[in-house]
């Protein structure tokens, strides 16, 4: 039986998350192969959209299959080396992170980074990475606070709920055509649905449906409220509102067997076919490089 999966050239993501059309196929084809060894053939590939590439790296890294790549052009090889496609860039010490990321100030992307959630100085990591992203994007100081807010809340969410050992972050600035900053944040945790199930919260509302769980999380129903007040659950909803309503960006969240997408054209919650399941949660943020003049982040942190 043929054990080759041809990797498509996925260079665009018209509406946030549409790249998953290709990614799901690659995963499906890879999983369908009986052989432990699977060959990913890059003969058709010359450029990858970051929202395709980041989940692809994550999938490859944790797949039970032995994935061998072939027909990588010299350009792809160099790019893959810089983003740590084959061996994830594991952040252990902040000083190492600063040193490693120094050559990236004049690039448009950072390596695909993995950090240990409980042991790492997550704030310190974010400060260093965000500093590079801001410089790469040339977006001006207006982007600093919303970026701090969104990344901070979403990474904090992973820390609080995913029970994942690792968190992941990848970023690429597409300054020419799309004029946006595409950021991917991920974990290998128990998923949004799994978090509600594990804590036994909102089970009547969820009714065993992963997409319903995503909907609840996006509405801000937290598993960790104080007994007498609803003080938690603002992270996702306010970040999304800031991004979509305030900055005209796009938001995508895939968790277990469901995904949610929200941008200026609307909002969707999707239950995936039974045979498709993403181990953990992955969030994609499309952040426009130009902050609208009347944007005030405080308008979005309240709800």
């Amino acid at each position: 039986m043929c054990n080759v999966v041809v990797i498509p050239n996925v260079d665009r993501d018209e509406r946030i998350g549409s790249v998953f059309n290709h990614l799901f196929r690659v995963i499906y084809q890879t999983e369908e192969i009986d052989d432990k060894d699977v060959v990913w053939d890059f003969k058709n590939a010359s450029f990858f959209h970051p929202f395709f590439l980041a989940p692809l790296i994550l999938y490859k890294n944790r797949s039970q299959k032995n994935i061998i790549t072939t027909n990588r052009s010299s350009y792809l090889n160099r790019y893959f080396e810089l983003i740590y496609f084959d061996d994830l860039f594991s952040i252990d010490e902040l000083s190492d992170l600063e040193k490693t990321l120094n050559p990236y100030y004049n690039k448009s992307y950072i390596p695909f980074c993995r950090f240990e959630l409980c042991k790492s100085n997550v704030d310190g990591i974010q400060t260093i990475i965000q500093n590079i992203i801001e410089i790469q994007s040339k977006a001006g100081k207006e982007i600093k606070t919303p970026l701090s807010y969104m990344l901070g809340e979403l990474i904090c969410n992973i820390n609080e709920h995913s029970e994942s050992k690792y968190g992941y972050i990848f970023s690429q600035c597409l300054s020419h055509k799309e004029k946006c900053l595409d950021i991917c944040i991920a974990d290998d945790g128990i998923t949004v649905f799994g978090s509600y199930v594990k804590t036994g919260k909102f089970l009547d509302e969820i009714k065993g449906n992963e997409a319903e769980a995503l909907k609840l999380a996006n509405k801000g129903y937290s598993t960790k409220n104080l007994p007498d007040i609803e003080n938690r659950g603002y992270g996702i909803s306010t970040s999304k509102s800031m991004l979509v309503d305030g900055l005209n960006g796009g938001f995508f969240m895939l968790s277990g067997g469901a995904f949610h997408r929200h941008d200026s054209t609307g909002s969707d919650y999707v239950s995936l076919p039974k045979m498709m399941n993403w181990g953990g949660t992955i969030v994609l943020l499309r952040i426009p490089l130009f902050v609208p003049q009347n944007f005030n982040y405080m308008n979005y942190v309240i709800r």
Partner: protein
Amino acid sequence: MRKTIKIEELIGQDIRSRQNADLIRNRINECDDFFELDFKGVSFISRSFADELYTITRENEDRITLKNMVGIVDSMLRVVQQSRIKKRIRKADNADIKEFNDIESLSAFLTTM
């Protein structure tokens, strides 16, 4: 005796993670003294951290004062204070859940994005 905790030195300029609040908790739980939390030099606090900070100040309101709360730091804490008083009003999200049973129908949906 009033002790000052310089938050910038203890945590940093940009404070995002909720767990950072434990650093303050640990310090004030070491003794029964009065504490002044000095936010001079802190340029950003997340809503999550502000929520924890608010809880700490409520739990220890007779022995904690806040100093140099300006800009984002001040406004974020005020937002949290308000949200603890007012009932939360959620933005409506009437999006339906779409269910797909096979990769082809999912693919067709994704293609029409």
